[in-house]
């Protein structure tokens, strides 16, 4: 159906290195073929070549031959291939031409000049096929991400193309919406015999659906085509299920959770009795473990407790000291209580004992906290209030005034926050608090209020009710220049933060904005993003590099609290693991991190705590393992495979084996 014969694409001058070179590839009819590889390897270029947009629309030189259903893209313009190829790009919103769902579905057919009766029938069929019937009159701008993606796919399906080309169809979607889209794709392949060529970074979502995988290992290297299991066995990019399979030596290599679970019985028995480390790795986890042990030991003797704390503070910096008092495994729901304890602990001996006792109780055992957290969502508000009260009482007994503005142990505190956008209540009675060194993942479907919550923490959104305190200040009333020293947000589109036309100018501006010494930002950039020249234009950076640049810019003012909105969107595995390392390092330095993400694997890797939002309310808040393991949508693959055991990542399992 699709044939690439020795295809090379060069953009720009003839002397420039080719973006894609020497690709030979045949996609037979009715197959779902997945294009895999790191960013910048030319996946989008290859996809564009199928629809003829490369080179007719984008410019550049294409050598070799691309034929689709027997039509050579050299002689056929994209519009003349429109009846054979349907293309959906990365951003569905940029794909839309009209303004309502139904018109959008009909647009392609109108261009092809189909008879009105045929158009009407196909629109109705497509509405049913993609489950869009109730959205038919809705303006496209009001749709959620998953709905948009489905409309975009529907809009290219109505002309009945033989080939569907998709560039990262699930990257921007929450897990449930991604499954919706993938179910539709599978249905097209199975029932209608559509050929699908798709590029996607989130392999854990798609690899099980692929008939074949084309691996593009690195720019300039030849591509490898094969059955998914074969390619995954040596691919440098792989989903956790494959990584676990390779670790456990399963053959054939499982691609889906279901296959893996069948093999996993033996692994589960081996892991029986071993409990996963409280946190995957890094100094933080160790510090916490140590502190827990000490705290329990010290519960009897006050001076010992203080010594224990002192040791930790001396040993691993103030961040770790604060963390020590916290019990990340079980304290999630009573941050105020924990905060109160931490405050009091180092100052007076009796309070120190109380802290130790409380920590010991908090850390009692992950097993005990499991059911408790599952119980929590219902009675959450009350429990939180109770613990807040308890925390106050305790700190009062310890001779400390409660609720001081500059509380070093709580970076941000959100209480009963309500936010309205016009008539829509985007957030309702949301409570959240973030401690230094803690990483919190906000999850929930598109439009659940994650970005709004982050926005209210940086004062971009004004609360309608409730309070937001960040570093003792109310964000939306704090002048921006002051706020950047307390909290930083990397928005969903890091480009929004970049105004200058070189990296160097951007850094200089960031130093000036933050009042930092000249060179601070550049130093951060060099550490996060080695090998980027000062005169590079920010737009020429890859997604991951741009994210790192934005991160460096907002970190210039040394804010203790860092917020990230969808940081892994469009990142390949390598960029993602670099990001994970950076974030872990920041957390170990004592930064509090809140990230809104759909990426369950990312949350499993770095989050201490997961907060799930639905319809603007917090429906779950607890340690990652407790919240995530039992959830069908938010569980990472390893958790699904090894359930009911609370393992989250391959690294955890590897460490335990």
């Amino acid at each position, binding site marked *: 159906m699709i044939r690439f014969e020795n295809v090379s694409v060069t953009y720009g001058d003839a002397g420039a290195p080719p973006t894609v070179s020497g690709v030979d590839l045949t996609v037979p009819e009715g197959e779902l073929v997945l294009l895999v590889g790191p960013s910048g390897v030319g996946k989008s270029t290859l996809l564009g070549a199928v629809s003829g947009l490369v080179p007719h629309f984008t410019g550049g030189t294409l050598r070799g031959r691309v034929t689709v259903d027997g039509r050579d893209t050299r002689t056929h313009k994209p*519009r003349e291939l429109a009846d054979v190829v349907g293309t959906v790009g990365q*951003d569905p919103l940029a794909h839309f031409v009209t303004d309502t769902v139904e018109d959008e579905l009909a647009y392609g057919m109108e261009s092809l000049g189909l008879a009105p009766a045929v158009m*009407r029938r196909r629109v109705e069929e497509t509405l*049913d096929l993609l489950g869009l*019937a109730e959205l038919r009159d809705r303006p496209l701008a009001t749709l959620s991400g998953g709905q948009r993606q489905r409309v975009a796919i529907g809009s290219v399906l109505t002309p009945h193309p033989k080939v569907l080309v998709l560039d990262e169809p699930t990257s921007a979607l929450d897990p449930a919406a991604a499954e919706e889209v993938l179910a539709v794709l599978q249905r097209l392949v199975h029932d209608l015999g559509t050929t699908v060529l798709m590029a996607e970074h989130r392999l854990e979502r798609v690899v099980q659906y692929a008939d074949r995988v084309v691996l593009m290992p690195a720019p300039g290297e030849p591509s490898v085509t094969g059955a998914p299991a074969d390619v995954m066995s040596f691919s440098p990019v792989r989903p956790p299920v494959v990584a676990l399979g390779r670790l456990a030596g399963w053959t054939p290599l499982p691609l889906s959770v279901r296959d893996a679970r069948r093999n996993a019985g033996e692994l589960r028995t081996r892991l029986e009795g071993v409990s996963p480390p409280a946190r995957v790795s890094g100094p933080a986890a160790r510090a916490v473990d140590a502190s827990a042990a000490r705290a329990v030991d010290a519960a009897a003797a006050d001076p010992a407790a203080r010594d224990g704390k002192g040791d930790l503070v001396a040993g691993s910096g103030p961040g770790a000291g604060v963390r020590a008092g916290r019990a990340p495994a079980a304290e999630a729901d009573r941050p105020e209580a924990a905060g109160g304890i931490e405050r009091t602990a180092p100052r007076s001996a009796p309070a120190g004992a109380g802290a130790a006792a409380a920590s010991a109780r908090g850390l009692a055992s992950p097993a005990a906290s499991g059911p408790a957290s599952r119980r929590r969502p219902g009675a959450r508000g009350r429990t939180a209030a109770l613990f807040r009260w308890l925390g106050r009482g305790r700190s009062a007994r310890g001779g400390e005034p409660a609720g001081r503005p500059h509380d070093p142990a709580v970076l941000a505190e959100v209480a009963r926050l309500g936010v309205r956008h016009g008539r829509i209540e985007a957030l309702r009675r949301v409570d959240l608090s973030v401690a230094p060194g803690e990483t919190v993942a906000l999850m929930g479907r598109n439009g659940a209020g994650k970005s709004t919550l982050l926005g209210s923490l940086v004062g971009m959104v004004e609360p309608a009710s409730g309070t937001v305190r960040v570093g003792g200040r109310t964000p939306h009333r704090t002048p921006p220049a002051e706020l950047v020293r307390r909290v930083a947000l990397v928005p969903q589109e890091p480009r929004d933060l970049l105004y200058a036309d070189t990296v160097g100018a951007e850094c200089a501006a960031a130093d000036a904005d933050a009042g930092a010494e000249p060179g601070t930002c550049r130093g951060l950039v060099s550490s996060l993003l080695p090998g980027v020249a000062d005169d590079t234009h920010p737009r020429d950076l890859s997604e991951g590099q741009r994210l790192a640049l934005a991160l460096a810019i907002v970190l210039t003012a040394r804010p203790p609290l860092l917020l990230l909105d969808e940081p892994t969107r469009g990142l390949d595995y390598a960029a993602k693991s670099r990001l994970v390392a950076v974030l872990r390092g920041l957390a170990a330095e004592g930064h509090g991190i809140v990230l809104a993400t759909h990426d369950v694997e990312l949350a499993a890797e770095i989050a201490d705590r997961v907060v799930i939002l639905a319809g603007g309310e917090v429906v779950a808040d607890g340690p990652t393992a407790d919240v995530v393991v039992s959830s069908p949508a938010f569980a990472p693959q390893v958790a699904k495979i090894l359930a009911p055991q609370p393992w989250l990542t391959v690294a955890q399992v590897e460490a335990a084996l």
Partner: protein
Amino acid sequence: MTGPPVPAPPDGPEQPAGHRLLGGVPRPRPAGPEPGTHPGPGSGRSDESGAAHGRGGNASAEGERGAREIGARRPGETERAAGRAAEGRRGESGGRGFGRAPRERRPLGGALRAPRAGRSNALHAGAWWVWALGLATAASRTTNPLLLGMLVGVAGYVVAARRTDAPWARSYGAFVKLGLAVIVVRLVFSAVLGSPVPGTHVLLTLPEVPLPDWAQGVRLGGRVTAEQLVFALYDGAKLATLLICLGAANALANPARLLKSLPGALYEAGVAVVVAMTFAPNMVADVLRLRTARRLRGRPTGGVKAVLQIGLPVLEGALERSVAVAASMDARGYGRTAQVPPAVRHTTTALTLGGLLGVCAGSYGLLAAEGAGYGLPVLLGGFAAALGGLWLGGRRQVRTRYRPDRWGPRAWLVAGSGVVVAALMIRAGTYEPLALHPGVVPLTAPSLPLWPAAAVLVGLLPAFVAPVPPKESSS
């Protein structure tokens, strides 16, 4: 069996619009009678839909849920579910209006009641414009504040009754504010700059600015009389009413749909305009987003500097998006043309160019003193040639139109009501000129002339005949 634009009989208020539309789904049906899906009129609706839905229940109540279920279901199941839901709908279209669940509030003339608006019975956008222009014409014929107030009231009532939640529908408020601003500006100018209206009731005397000789005839400050203010008020009110009528059309008619009614040769231009229109709101959103993003860099979000600094990124963003949309349009077949013989192509060009030239020459002839004789025929000829060019040009188009708005009886009524208002008001201008233009010198209280007032009320008709937009359609 193509989707009939059903001027649907009244439907229950809780029924979703999209759902009813599915009543017109063309689906191959077996020729024979289908027990269960084709109940006779009046046959028990509940058991029929119960059979069709399996676990559904009443089809009219369950339709929406059924549709949602489809979205949530796994692929294998979807087909059957879709079939089931469609059966439910089909059954419903067969038995529509009969044996509906008992419902009070069935006002008079069920069949005449305005239906719930949907795609298939959407009122032609042109009808709203004709109606609004009719009201505007009427407004331009009178300065009677009572009549103008009635016109504003009529337009406002219809807008309140029939506007949707769509973004363009929110522009009405802006037009009303603009109208008020016009009145205020008119009053201020009249007070400050004086007015030729003679008057005796001096309200106050502003300090007069002495002006040099060459500025004779211009006055700054001075006496302000009640008469001149009333005159300015009437005049401003007329202009404001005109604006509000246009605002009503803007709020009620979807501009994109209006552009879609353009002739084929202009279609591509129409699409370009539609795309441009969707870009304006996107750019505004970009500006807002980038301005708030400045906060993240520790810079103030307000001020001219902020706007200047984000100007370039916003333009870049808009440019990138337009390139993306252009790519999408290209990949989806925009600009495919049919092969037409060269003769036709050349004729098209000649007709269009010649026609336009003719129109120019003709208008010149009409306006210039010496060419009155040939002006009109040349103008008409040029016009005809240009139309012919457009028509021939349309033959290159392969594109077809999906569910264009149809000009149905309700559109006639809506457009007609506007025309009637305009015509009656123009007529009233001949027999009751004084009532339409109440005097200001001497000051008299305006009276409400009976017949013109009744004529204005005709403009309320759309509030009863136009399809009712669904409440909170997008939530």
